[in-house]
């Protein structure tokens, strides 16, 4: 693994070099190694999910099954969704970067329960194996598993949701660990209002995970029971109610989109001040808006069901509350932009990704009102408009935030600098590819193209070709980015402890950090954004 690649003969042993061998990783209690293990597994599945996405786009190049059958297409888009959501977007920032950086950022030696943390990564690995086992009968339900279809299909739904259940347990235990760590292990003097904003966002995320994940866990258990024992809570033929499944599913899966986006917002809140050399604007507003989003995220799940057959009163209720999420989200964006005012802005790759995040996430956010408003949601629901909106928030938001974080923290994690030129080339391709692929889908959706269609009327073909070509540009950028990640493990310049001039604690220790993080637990006397001011 990585410790074999990095030679650090001259300096003190760090967390990568202190012990060696596979078992020193599998049984490690070090939060940093656990974070790296998550990162490797999750990024691998990001690539796998991406390949399925490319296949989906390739099939849609032509309107009539030129590459694969309907059934194969259905499996491809389902695997793309399931892998990207459950194996990548939900866990990537919390489990990988959160594990690595929460203790470092709050001045702790590790998380509160290191053995529980190791157990969580094992559970995650077990879940991944079970998910892979389900590929024997690839699942064809869409990542939403709507009943009654999911209760009847011959695909290995039971195995797959079992695997996701294990990963959900891993997520819950990780979240629990973070909550206790943030409450109990902050360094002396690290008050709540001196916490880096990444910690605030991880705290909000963890609360959502603890509260929402068990509900979907139970829902999946009931779905499994429906398939195994013939119970019928969701089956109208047995007196059940298919809408009940949707309510439960979205009670989790809507807050889950905040699980996906809040950590990325935390990363952006760290990067913008560092590369503007300026204190963050509106610290408390950003911190509290994370909590507000986490809270109001629980009141809006029904906006996924405006045309599902809910009562009219429920539709109105959920539409109203949906708009309440918009305001705290807007506050964050305004604060980030205000932070840059009169700053000294450095356009290094992490900052470029952070700016890309703001740019594309705002498009994702501003297309939300079209779907939250009742009248316009009715035609746009379940069309490519939703696909575009979703990818603008998730790919344009979370994934850009992740890329920002990876480029920002790569020197700390590996002790090497990335090649800036290659990184910027990759960014340019990703940015162009992303916009070509997905912007177009807003219009495609407005024109009435339903999602999850393997074939389509020829009048949509031109736009599908544009999206497919865009997906190739996007893929090229991602390949180059990963090439840069892997190549620089060995070839990259040695990283100084604080290459970006940041004020947070992780940059005050060597790169990579030693196993125990700090030789002495620091005493905190100031917030982490105290950049000096030059008078003019």
């Amino acid at each position, binding site marked *: 693994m990585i410790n074999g690649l990095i030679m650090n003969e001259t300096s003190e042993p760090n967390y990568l070099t202190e012990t060696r061998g596979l078992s020193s990783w599998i049984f490690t209690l070090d939060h940093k190694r656990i974070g790296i293990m998550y990162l490797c597994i999750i990024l691998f599945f990001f690539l796998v999910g991406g390949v399925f996405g490319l296949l989906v786009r390739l099939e849609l190049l032509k309107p009539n099954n030129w590459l694969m059958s309907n059934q194969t297409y259905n499996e491809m888009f389902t695997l793309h969704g399931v892998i990207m959501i459950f194996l990548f977007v939900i866990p990537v920032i919390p489990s990988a970067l959160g594990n690595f950086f929460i203790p470092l950022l709050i001045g702790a030696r590790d998380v509160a329960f290191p053995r529980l943390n190791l157990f969580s990564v094992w559970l995650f690995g077990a879940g991944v194996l079970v998910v892979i086992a389900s590929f024997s009968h690839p699942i*064809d339900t869409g990542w939403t598993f709507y009943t009654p279809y999911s209760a009847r299909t011959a695909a290995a739904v039971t195995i797959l949701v079992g695997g996701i259940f294990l990963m959900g347990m891993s997520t819950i235990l990780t979240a629990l660990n973070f909550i206790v760590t943030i409450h109990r292990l902050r360094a002396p003097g690290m008050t709540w209002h001196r916490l880096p904003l990444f910690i605030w966002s991880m705290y909000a995320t963890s609360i959502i995970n603890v509260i929402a994940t068990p509900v979907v866990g139970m829902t999946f258990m009931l779905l499994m029971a429906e398939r195994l024992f013939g119970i019928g809570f969701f089956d109208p033929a047995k007196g059940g109610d298919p809408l009940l499944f949707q309510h439960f599913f979205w009670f989790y899966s809507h807050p889950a989109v905040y699980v996906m986006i809040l950590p990325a917002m935390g990363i952006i809140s760290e990067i913008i001040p560092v590369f503007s*050399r300026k204190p963050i604007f509106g610290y408390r507003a950003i911190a509290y808006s994370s909590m507000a989003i986490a809270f109001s995220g629980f009141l809006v799940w029904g906006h996924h069901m405006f045309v599902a057959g809910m009562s009219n009163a429920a539709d109105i209720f959920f539409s109203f509350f949906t708009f309440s999420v918009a305001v705290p989200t807007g506050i964050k964006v305004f604060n980030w932009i205000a932070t840059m005012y009169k700053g000294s802005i450095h356009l290094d790759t992490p900052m470029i990704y952070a700016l890309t995040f703001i740019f594309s996430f705002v498009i994702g956010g501003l297309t939300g*009102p079209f779907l939250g408003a*009742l009248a316009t949601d009715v035609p746009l629901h379940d069309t490519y408009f939703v696909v575009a909106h979703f990818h603008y928030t998730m790919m344009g938001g979370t994934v850009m935030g992740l890329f920002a974080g990876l480029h920002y923290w790569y020197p700390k994690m590996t002790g090497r600098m990335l090649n800036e030129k290659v990184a910027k080339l990759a960014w340019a391709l990703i940015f162009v590819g992303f916009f070509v692929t997905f912007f177009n889908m807003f219009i495609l959706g407005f024109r*009435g193209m339903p999602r999850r269609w393997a074939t389509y009327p020829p009048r949509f073909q031109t736009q599908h070709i544009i999206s497919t070509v865009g997906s190739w540009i996007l893929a090229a950028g991602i390949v180059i980015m990963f090439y840069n990640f892997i190549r620089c493990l060995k070839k990259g310049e040695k990283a100084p402890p604080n290459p970006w001039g940041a004020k947070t604690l992780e940059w005050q220790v060597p790169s990579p950090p030693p196993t125990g993080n700090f030789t002495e637990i620091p005493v905190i006397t100031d917030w982490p954004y105290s950049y000096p001011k030059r008078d003019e």
Partner: protein
Amino acid sequence: MSSAPTAFGAASHVASEVDNVFIFILVITAFFFVATQGTLIYFVIRYRHRKGRPDVATSSVITNRILEGIWIGVPSIAVAAIFFYGYTVWEDIRTVPKGAEEINVTARQWLYQFQYPDGRKSINEVRVPVGQAVEFNLTSADVLHGFYLPAFRIKQDAVPGRYTYVWLRASDPGSYDIFCTQYCGVGHSQMRAKLIVMPPARYRQWYRQETAKAEKVLPLADKGKAVVQRLGCLACHSTDGTVKVGPTWKNLYESRVLLENGKTVIADDNYIRTKILNPAATTVKGFPKVMPTFKGIIKDDEITAVIAYIKTLK
């Protein structure tokens, strides 16, 4: 007629209203997009670090109450306006006008079956006259399906075991797409139907011809009457207003029913369906709790027919 090119422009008054909401939101969001991203790009260019300059910011402002008040207040008002406008137009989408003609739709893997009031059935093609409000009563025979008419900007899921509805009033003749938007398995993307809108005179002519051709088929309400007689419903329910063991069916449909638990419900399709299949769920005030369930005795399309029959008892 059916060879006419598929239209996408707003094909009903409601569709134009929906487009107006779309444009309204587009204008508001475009404003916010330009305002935020313009500022962002301006700041990046204006304040970027240049070589040789001291690498220190010239401001350390971290809060500004007036500014923050504005950017909480203005978006709040904007989203409130969007919600309200979206809600009012949606009321029109959901409110079926009086005198709407009813067509029953049963979605199944992977086709739509339409049933006209005269009992005739057709697959994947349905005809309606221009200017006439038409209500589609949707249900599904197997899994979830969608019922999406892009040109009319309306959509509704078809759910097994319950009824949902959409309505439209077409403003121009033509042929329009009906798409399945709720993933339903292998044939999902091939589950498409056509709505053919005809001028009223030609429609009436066509309708008479078709009815005549299909004389052997009982009109839906008549089929319902036959089912009612076969199952002995009339032992307890009257059709002329007299109170027997159970409430009368006369003027029952769409009336307000006072329940034993004090609540009031509207006797709509779903209510009647539930009463037939699961009578214990609700009891009408003043009547004994004795109705047996007809679950397993009555078929789905028979329930639809009985409801059609009850609708005629005015």
